[in-house]
């Protein structure tokens, strides 16, 4: 199975390649990708250099153009696709059907991957994208169990890539409007979830209070690990109870299930985290590369130290081992 790794800067990109990535995914410095954060991402020149760096070392480069085009401004996305193809991207990761159609018609030879943001999770949806746009791979939403993935793999005509490590979203990828509700901006349209421009932290009697727009997201006592200031990870008072209404501030880790994922028909394992620093990228990629070649017992030891780098310093297998209805 391939190891697909994130990079938000050229420095992180080189770290990912050097640490053993089979492919690195990245985006341009604008709203054409779902990690449109200040100071992050690649200029055209940086992407060209990165692709050349990866190619010299036998790694591939996937370019994420995985936001939904704004009506009347499609040119921004079309130009990004043109530039990514011209610079030699090995695959484009797309979510918008209109952009998929444009790429399939304009660059029929270009390898096209379906982004997790497209939320294609059943045979009809995936096979439609394969037939209509020539999609070669689908990145599955983090909503399926391993049995679901195995069933799906038998019924679709493209490769499967799944997230195995990193941040975890609520189970409405590509359709989540929580950030939009609180701030007017969303990962789907603007490439930002809980944009930093709307985030505020303050100290209150030793507690860390995080706020997003007009909403208090969480209050962390002094010794509790913190999480991201997103509504989906918010701790709220609901009736007589106080707790996490959507999900706990934890990260995904299903590296102990990679043998089962392989048997299910998965071709590629994806690490989330283009917004993370190069130290994180280097540490996670090198550890997961070792884990792929390790025995199950060795894997547990290798992965234990990564927990400290995770949101809330806790990890979960999420829906892959769903035990709820």
């Amino acid at each position: 199975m391939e190891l697909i790794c994130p990079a938000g800067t050229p420095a992180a990109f080189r770290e990912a390649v050097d640490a053993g990535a089979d492919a690195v995914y990245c985006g341009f410095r604008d709203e054409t990708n779902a990690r449109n954060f200040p100071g992050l991402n690649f200029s055209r020149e940086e992407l060209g250099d990165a692709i050349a760096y990866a190619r010299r070392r036998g790694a591939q480069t996937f370019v994420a153009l995985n936001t939904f085009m704004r009506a009347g401004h499609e040119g921004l996305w079309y130009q990004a696709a043109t530039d990514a193809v011209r610079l030699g991207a090995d695959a484009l990761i797309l979510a918008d059907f209109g952009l998929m159609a444009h790429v399939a018609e304009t660059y029929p030879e270009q390898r096209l991957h379906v982004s997790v943001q497209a939320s294609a999770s059943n045979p009809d949806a995936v096979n439609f994208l394969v037939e209509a746009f020539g999609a070669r791979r689908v990145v599955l939403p983090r909503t399926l169990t391993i049995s679901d993935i195995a069933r799906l793999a038998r019924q679709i005509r493209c490769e499967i890539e799944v997230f195995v490590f990193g941040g975890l979203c609520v189970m409405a990828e590509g359709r989540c409007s929580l950030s939009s509700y609180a701030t007017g901006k969303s990962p789907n349209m603007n490439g930002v979830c809980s944009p930093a421009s709307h985030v505020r932290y303050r100290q209150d009697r030793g507690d860390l209070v995080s706020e997003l727009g007009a909403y208090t997201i969480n209050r962390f006592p002094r010794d509790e690990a913190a999480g991201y200031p997103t509504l989906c990870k918010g701790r709220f008072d609901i009736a007589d109870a106080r707790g996490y209404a959507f999900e706990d501030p934890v990260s995904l880790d299903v590296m102990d299930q990679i043998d089962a994922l392989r048997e299910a028909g998965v071709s590629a394992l994806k690490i989330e985290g283009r917004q993370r620093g190069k130290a994180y990228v280097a540490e996670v990629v090198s550890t997961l590369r070792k884990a792929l070649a390790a025995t199950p017992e060795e894997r547990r030891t290798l992965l234990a130290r990564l927990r400290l780098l995770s949101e809330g310093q806790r990890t979960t297998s999420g829906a892959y081992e769903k035990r709820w209805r």
Partner: protein
Amino acid sequence: MEFPRPLAAPLAVVPIALIEGAVKLMFKSLLNRHPALFDRLGEHRGKRYAFCPLDLPLVFVVEPSRAAVLVTRKRAAAAADAVVEGPLFLLLALLEGRCDADALFFSRSLTVIGDMEAMLALRNALDGCEVDLPRDLGASAGPLSPLVSRTADAIRRRALAGENAAWN
């Protein structure tokens, strides 16, 4: 690792102009080695960023637009758009991209307040550069270059031992 108290305490009485002079020299040397350090800041280049080492009686305020750094005592209020607080050696590790800022935030080792967009831009700008303090400071130390680099490297190794900063 905390900055040793016997070394930090005298900084409360050393003339601020002397400390600021030394810090400005190091800052200039860093910018000479990394002229693109602040390129990724974009619209946030005009902001003021304060770094407050918890184990020093000082605050460092960086103004990228003027390529300037100011040093003040902690008791004097430093005007800044964004502030980050943490142990000195972790702040230096962040400058080098040697530790992951999100992980330090999750573990509560770092505190950030103020303009988060500006702070995020600065974090990414620093992470995008390949700052190596022993190498960069040594480069402008003339004939003392090998000694400065070796000493700074030894301090860094000791300071970051056990801080999950195994990168590089």
